């Protein structure tokens, strides 16, 4: 019975995580675990992505079901090299495959948490007024809600990463430093990848598109420092 369930991507993250972590720490079956984590991560993110876009209709739901897994895959792909280098430099000599599995483990756990929130997110989307110029408040509230849920699940996913790292044979100080660097890299790169692949919730003024024409024109941090912070400062 259990063996059949293990074939379901993500099942081992929820029920056999100790066995999985033992194999990763020992460096066994890394490729198999990496592929399974990729599948679990993509499925979880696709489920939440499909729900995320429903406020704007089926087209954006379909786009988001493709784009949210892409955000996580691209974030992992862009950070894995740095994560491995940083770990080695900080005194944690892991194999590249182990780093790849560990970093994907965090995002896969976060994706499963996101998928479990799909009913809640769908409920909020369905209770919001339909998109249009008059629904700007609803848009902002949904935007905040989804950002909080995605950010929260991302952080939640790093709990799995920390549990895995505690099993490694290294001083706690080194583990903490590596963990902090990895999480900071995820957050910085993930935020920018998501910004480049916008829209997710969908604008109340602009039409639905897969990618905006200005996707790579400016980054999210420029936007925060030149747009959001001055706007907030003008309120004070």
């Amino acid at each position, binding site marked *: 019975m259990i063996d059949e369930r293990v074939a379901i991507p993500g099942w081992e*993250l*929820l*029920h056999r995580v100790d066995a999985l972590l033992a194999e990763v720490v020992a460096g066994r079956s890394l490729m198999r675990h990496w592929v399974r984590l990729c599948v679990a991560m993509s499925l979880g993110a696709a489920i939440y992505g499909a729900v995320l876009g429903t406020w704007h209709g089926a087209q954006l739901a379909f786009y988001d079901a493709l784009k949210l897994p892409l955000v996580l895959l691209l974030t992992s792909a862009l950070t894995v090299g740095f994560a491995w280098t940083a770990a080695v430099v900080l005194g944690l000599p892991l194999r590249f495959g182990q780093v790849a599995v560990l970093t994907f483990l965090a995002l896969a*756990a976060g994706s*499963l*948490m996101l*998928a*479990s*929130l*799909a*009913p*809640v997110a769908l*409920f*909020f989307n*369905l*209770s*919001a*007024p*339909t998109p249009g110029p008059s629904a700007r*408040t*609803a848009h902002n*509230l949904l935007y905040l809600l989804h950002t909080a849920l995605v950010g*929260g699940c991302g952080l*939640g*996913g790093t*709990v*799995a990463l920390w*549990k895995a790292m505690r099993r490694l044979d290294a001083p706690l100080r080194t583990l903490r430093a590596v963990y902090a660097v990895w999480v900071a890299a995820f957050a910085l790169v993930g935020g920018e990848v998501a910004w480049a692949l916008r829209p997710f919730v969908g604008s109340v003024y602009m039409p639905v598109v897969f990618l905006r024409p200005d996707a790579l024109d400016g980054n999210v941090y420029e936007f925060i420092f030149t747009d959001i912070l001055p706007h907030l400062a003008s309120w004070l």
Partner: protein
Amino acid sequence: MESISDIPQPRSLTGVFNELLIRPLAFLDRARNGGQASPFRMIAVSTLCYALYGAAAGFFQGGDQILVAALKAPMIILFTLLLCLPSLYVFSAVAGAEWTRRSFLAVLAGFAGTLALVLLALLPINWLFSSSSRHLSSATIIQFFLWLIALGLAWRFLGKGLQATGARGGMVLWLLLFCVVSLQAATVLRPVLSRKPGGAVFVYGKKSFLEHFGDTFREGETAR
């Protein structure tokens, strides 16, 4: 020394609820060890308690709103539980909980039961404030605070239950999620406390709970 699993199953339903108060983990322990536990019966009786609590809240307007509120309170809580079920399972499993179907159902029913008990204990206070409040805005604020108190005390069971199954840390965030979802559920199923004479039992129209609260506070001064 007598272990929890040796303690016999209470015969009456009041015994089960009494056990939830004095030995909150006994119900879960019996379920985990294959003993007799009746989660569905507990949820059914909890639903009745939610209805009584809703009826007390309906005294704000009185009349048939007592029945309407008695119908809607269980709907709000059960709908919220249903929506938050997958996240409770996944979040706690990621936090380290080792679930079986029986233990998950027992924790869920125990949470619903504890919530029902606390709401039942708050019922006289709810009735007093609902009957005496003049403004919808103040009645709403009181309901919100009573709900926060009920959730905080129900956490006593849920937190211990999750810890017993192996979950470590961060699960209080799920309670926050549950609270936010319940507020939106109450908005979708509005009006609960008060409606205009001859007004519909359910108002159709999409609205966020924050907007609804804002409207309630603007209109509340003339509601009763």
